[in-house]
């Protein structure tokens, strides 16, 4: 009988397996859903609606053919963001309503200041959901662009944008200390550019 060659030692196999297992455990992230958060207005009718000046409202209408009308003018989706930024950042108010941080054109016929500016998004019953979401996305992007700008201007030492800071704040891995230091900063920026995006009820047919 021939001498058997020694068997390969398999004792360390389990260790390798566990090593790999732990590696995967640490690196896999379970997919989470993400999307655009919105808050619906409460149902109860407001008896005495506040009077809002026409110049402080930025109307966006998406009709049933998925065409976008911004301030009653036909517009391409790619221009919605820039015109929304222009409207929000206008700062045309004087005296008490003056906006000290706006960099816009200070046009008297556009919004007084970002705290007053309201974007009204209206859709038809036959509008496609994906187009509606695209428009919403662009409008949220306009707010984020301005908030980013103010955040980096105000807190240059943090070396991040508003969106990054907000993400960090909502991340459960961030320590409480960092969170408490971020909160007032985020609130301050949110107050400068409050997200006043109204979703009007669609036209009744």
């Amino acid at each position, binding site marked *: 009988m021939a001498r058997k060659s020694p068997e390969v030692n398999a004792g360390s196999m389990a260790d390798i397996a566990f090593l790999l297992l732990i590696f995967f455990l640490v690196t*896999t992230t379970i*997919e989470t*859903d993400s999307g655009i958060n919105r808050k619906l207005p409460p149902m109860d009718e407001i008896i005495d609606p506040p009077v809002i000046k026409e110049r402080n409202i930025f109307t966006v209408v998406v009709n049933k053919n998925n065409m976008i009308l911004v301030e009653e003018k036909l517009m391409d989706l790619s221009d919605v963001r820039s015109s929304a930024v222009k409207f929000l950042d206008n700062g045309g108010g004087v005296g008490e309503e003056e906006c000290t941080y706006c960099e816009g054109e200070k046009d008297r016929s556009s919004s007084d200041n970002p705290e007053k500016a309201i974007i009204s998004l209206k859709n038809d019953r036959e509008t496609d959901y994906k187009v509606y979401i695209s428009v919403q996305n*662009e409008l949220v992007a306009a707010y984020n662009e301005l908030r980013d700008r103010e955040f980096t201007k105000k807190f240059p030492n943090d070396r991040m944008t508003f969106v990054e800071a907000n993400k960090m704040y909502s991340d459960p891995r961030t320590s409480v200390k960092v969170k408490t230091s971020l909160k007032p900063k985020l609130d301050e920026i949110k107050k400068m550019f409050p997200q006043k995006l109204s*979703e009007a009820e669609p036209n009744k047919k």
Partner: protein
Amino acid sequence: MSKFKKKKGGELPAISTASLPDIVFMLLFFFMVATVMRDNTLMVENKLPAADQVQKLDKKDRVIYIYAGKPSSRYKTKYGNQAKIQLNDKFSVVSDVGAYVLAERATKREELQNVLTTALKVDGETNMGLISDIKQELRKVNALKINYTTRIGNYSQNY
């Protein structure tokens, strides 16, 4: 000479299979961890629209899901081609949404009942009319925090 002969006569040593269970367990654990359990079987087409200004959704126990879209190909003959709402495991009509949300809310822990988000997982091809109806129903039951669930991507992918 005899040395070589001996070697040729010897059988190949069997490969040890002692580590096979380890490998299998490793794979098992990996898949156990990485798999996301789907609570509902989708009965509607659900190609979510793309957006890039997104926020992560809350923890799963704080979310109520509402699906909507055209019935998927299996159900097309029975339910037709019109966009429908899916709640839990069945097709529903708009007037059921309120009751569904209230029932779901009641199953959640008390301290979470005020912080619930309603995630709308709606197919991109759906008409806004259906979504507006859902939104009205949600307003009626005071479920005001909503989330339009999207894929992450540029809006140009929507066309």
